[in-house]
């Protein structure tokens, strides 16, 4: 069973109510798209954001990821709003 570390930043953290967690992934979660689908089913705040049409960004092991980026045991997966630095 794959375990990953999830990190949340900025208003996404405010909405989820925590900054990080370790979680066990079911076998059908193999990439960013399936991870996000699974998280939305588990986390009402994420499902609500999808309904509001608010964009979020995902990084796997500190690199920006796409829906088909693989997610595997030991990965660090971060979910956050579009960035606003500079």
């Amino acid at each position, binding site marked *: 069973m794959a375990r990953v570390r999830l990190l949340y*930043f900025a208003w996404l953290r405010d909405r989820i109510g925590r900054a990080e967690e370790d979680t066990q992934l079911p076998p059908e979660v193999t990439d960013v798209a399936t991870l996000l689908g699974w998280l939305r089913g588990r986390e009402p705040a994420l499902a609500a954001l999808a309904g509001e049409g608010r964009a979020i960004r995902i*990084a796997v092991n*500190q690199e920006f990821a796409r829906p088909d980026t693989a997610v595997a045991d030991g990965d660090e997966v971060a979910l*956050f*709003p*579009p*960035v606003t*630095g*500079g």
Partner: protein
Amino acid sequence: MATVRIQTGPFDAGAELAALAESCGVGVGGLGCFMGVVRADPGAGGRALRTLTLEHYPGMTERAIAAIVEAAERRFDLLGCTVVHRVGPLGIGEPIVLVLAAAAHRAAALDATGFLIDWLKTRAPFWKRQDYADGSYDWVEARHEDEDAAGRWD
């Protein structure tokens, strides 16, 4: 030669310019620079901004900025560059970010400066929280203009 720092304290723009010029040797002819400062933007509903807090993703931020710097070095004929980005709470008028680029000629220095700040705004994991005098807060939304500005380098 690239210098990248994430820090909570202030920076000395003049010292950074001098250090970069020095490190580039006798071939440097021009340095471009951009310094971003906290603007007293009227918040939603005319609330008065008290503090802007820069949050970042430690680890990924450094990697993302290193990748942006490498992209600048591939695109422009640079002798060196410097990126200093502050995090944590900042008051109105306080400097947030300093970007420097040094080259033999001014076009490369100024173009690279614009490139670095455009990509920093869209590709480095920083977020801005605005705390208002009335105790409320919100998060700065990403701007389409910033995506457009970054897109002109594609």
